């Protein structure tokens, strides 16, 4: 199947919400074309508001729309809609616990040629620390569409992180989707690889490679980083005894941190983290950047080998029968 960017799924989902949810409105800071909200704008011009290149005002305006009963989707580049606006998101949206949805397109390194200033690498950490905020990173275009539609009926602030680059389609139209419910994409009991966004595809490729070495990796698509699917993640830690996380985001405060916070207090197991070191991005072809920043399947493979080296032997020897 053709690769597609998750931002397209947001655009399609928003368009569908236009039909099903008369209270859904959209705002953009002059990036509705990039974020694909332009499809909604063309169909529902009265329900689309441009606020100019003024993200702080956009978030405040969205809060006001929500105060008056609307379900606003405010979109821009992920960096700008979360970075410039942190204070507005904190007070106007999260403190007031308003029904505002934030869509950040061009998340992560896969923005590519635009370079460091547009490459959001810290926003999951920023959004995750805000009380009331839900944080979602869809893995493919279909999931992005479902997540967009789901968050309209999920009360409170939600942040959707979307990508610009086409990514493989891993799910099907029929797969069910629930905010906060992680999906096991591949069974396995030797180790768990937990990914979000485009790193889920890389995790699956890594798992295939590992299977050739007779290592069965369970792959979890942790599309909701907050709230975490505690049950699925704890069960995986208990059953596999070792965890690798993979995210297109700084290693500080994102998916890996969230999983570590959960496991260290409830079921500590050896962990390794695949993500961006404490640094900014740069210009380049997205696929090159993913290589340079060590976010490729082979990086997950080597992290997995490392974690298996420190996994307690007792657990390894009690491994249940291998999956075929």
């Amino acid at each position: 199947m053709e690769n597609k960017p998750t931002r397209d799924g947001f655009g399609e989902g928003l368009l569908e919400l236009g039909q099903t949810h008369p209270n859904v409105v959209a705002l953009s800071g002059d990036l509705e074309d990039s974020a694909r909200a332009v499809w909604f704008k063309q169909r529902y011009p009265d329900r689309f508001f441009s606020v100019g290149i003024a993200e702080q005002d956009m978030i405040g305006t969205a809060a006001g729309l929500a105060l008056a009963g609307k379900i606003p989707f405010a979109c821009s580049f992920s960096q700008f809609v979360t970075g410039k606006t942190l204070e507005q998101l904190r007070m106007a949206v999260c403190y007031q616990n308003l029904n505002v949805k934030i869509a950040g397109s061009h998340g992560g390194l896969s923005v590519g040629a635009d370079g460091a200033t547009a490459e959001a690498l810290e926003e999951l950490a920023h959004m995750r620390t805000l009380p009331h905020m839900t944080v979602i990173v869809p893995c493919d275009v279909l999931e992005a569409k479902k997540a967009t539609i789901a968050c309209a009926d999920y009360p409170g602030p939600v942040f959707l992180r979307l990508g610009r680059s086409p990514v493989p389609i891993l799910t099907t139209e029929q797969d069910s989707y629930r905010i906060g419910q992680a999906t096991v994409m591949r069974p396995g009991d030797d180790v768990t690889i937990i990914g979000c966004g485009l790193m889920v595809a890389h995790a699956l490729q890594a798992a295939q490679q590992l299977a050739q070495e007779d290592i069965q990796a369970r792959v979890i698509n942790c599309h909701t980083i907050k709230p975490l699917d505690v049950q699925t993640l704890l069960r995986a830690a208990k059953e596999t005894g070792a965890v690798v996380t993979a995210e297109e985001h700084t290693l500080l405060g994102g998916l890996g941190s969230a999983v570590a916070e959960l496991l260290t207090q409830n079921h500590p197991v050896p962990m390794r983290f695949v993500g961006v070191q404490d640094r900014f991005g740069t210009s380049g072809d997205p696929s090159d950047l993913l290589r340079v920043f060590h976010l490729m399947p082979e990086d997950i493979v080597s992290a997995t080998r490392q974690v298996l080296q420190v996994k307690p032997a007792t657990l390894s020897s009690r491994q249940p029968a291998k999956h075929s």
Partner: protein
Amino acid sequence: MPSTPDIQKLRQLCVELRQTVLRMIAKAGSGHPGGSLSMVELLVGLYWHALRHDSKRPDWPQRDLFFLSKGHGCPILYAVLAFCGYFPKEELMTLRRYPTRLQGHPERGSVPGIEISSGSLGQGLSMANGVALADRLDGRLRRIYCLMGDGEIQEGQVWEAAMTSHHHRLDSVCAIIDANQLQQNGPVKSIQDIEPLADKWRAFGWHAIEIDGHDLKAVLSAYDEAATIQGRPQVIIARTVKGKGVSFMELNPAWHGVAPKPDELDRALKELQQAGIHSS
């Protein structure tokens, strides 16, 4: 909303509100007396004249909205709401002390009548615009008032929002500037000059009305005039005195965020009482 407001009664009300606010802040041991005292007439003009509201129905969908963007001025808003009957007056004396509903900066819904959370400056006008846009979509006719400080409008978001109000011709939005001349570290003029205020707002497409913010008649007629303006947002630039009514607080930056001690409170209350007697 009284049709012909009794100015004398409103003046007396202003005295009582000022005294109440000072008692609240003194009891709390911290707070911002100056910025509350400067906007007493502005709030009395709103809640006893311009604003369509009903304290018995705080969620009435057709009510006008008041957004206090300068959240540190909330003691006077709490007092006004209690005097209007939104919650018991006795509760005013719990200001800022755990487990009060009356935080040092307001939280939406903590008590009936508090429409937005504020305290991080510069955000109220954007929210007012959002409500106005929603009201237009839904055919709801009501006005949204947003009160800001003069120091507050140094925040860039205010001017982003000012452009949005104008671009969308949000004539249900009425901004009020409590131009009390001082901010935390001194005169606004010396910290970051914002003048000429009226010219600035007019250049942004707003209908600007400039008044003495302690002249109740002027305040009432400014609200009346603003409500008649169609096709553009309105701003009432109220020239006020920070700490108004208490001689040793007036235009003294030291009283931006300090609570009066017991002897200071006594002096302040007596001064206000005297002035109230003379004006009636």
